[in-house]
């Protein structure tokens, strides 16, 4: 299943934010910036190398209401997929 197929409500657009190498709090700050340009129901994929991001993205999602739909880690890169509320 692709990200686009898993998206029931938005326009089907997936935006990727490459925040690799950025230190706390920049991944979450850039995410807060980037989500403004995502339509409601569409997905934002964020790539980061900050280990604190696992706790941060869970908390950010809970607090802002943007759903964390997928979370993976490979080769030190954390990947989060968020659906704009």
């Amino acid at each position, binding site marked *: 299943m692709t990200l686009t197929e898993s998206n029931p409500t938005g326009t089907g657009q997936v935006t990727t934010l490459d925040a690799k190498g950025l230190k*706390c709090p920049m991944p979450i*700050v850039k995410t*807060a910036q980037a989500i403004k340009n995502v339509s409601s129901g569409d997905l934002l994929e964020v790539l980061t190398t900050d280990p604190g991001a696992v706790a941060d993205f869970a908390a950010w999602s809970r607090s802002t209401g943007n759903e964390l739909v997928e979370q993976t880690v490979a080769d030190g890169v954390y990947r989060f997929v968020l659906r704009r509320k």
Partner: protein
Amino acid sequence: MSDQGEEPISLVLFSGTDDRLTAAAVLTAGAAALGRPVHIFLQYWALDAFRADKINMRRPLAPEAGPEGAAAVQQAHADGQQPWVETLRMAKEIGEVDIQACSLSMDILHLSADQLDPIVDGVEGVAAFYVNAGVGQVVFI
């Protein structure tokens, strides 16, 4: 929404050292990213650091940094860590961040509002600060 989505956070900045200003800027940016309004109240040496003619100056570190800590901070800057004022500017772009100068500190340091960097939104007294802080947390840095 969570229970604390819109709860404001208030930071009293007292110290004008680079490390404390950086810590305050990081706390501000994080709160702004969460959608929490941030009120910043500038007193004494923190206020001095927001003078238009000083805001881009290299600041000293807190005494507890020591030579080893100073080297670590210098390395972080060399590796591209952005200056605290840039982090604050970014926080203002993404969220609701209000920066106010303490009127008593303005008086003590003989400052007028036009000497402050435009990132400062205004001058207020301690009563206004507390009223704006409301029921939210207040942190002194």
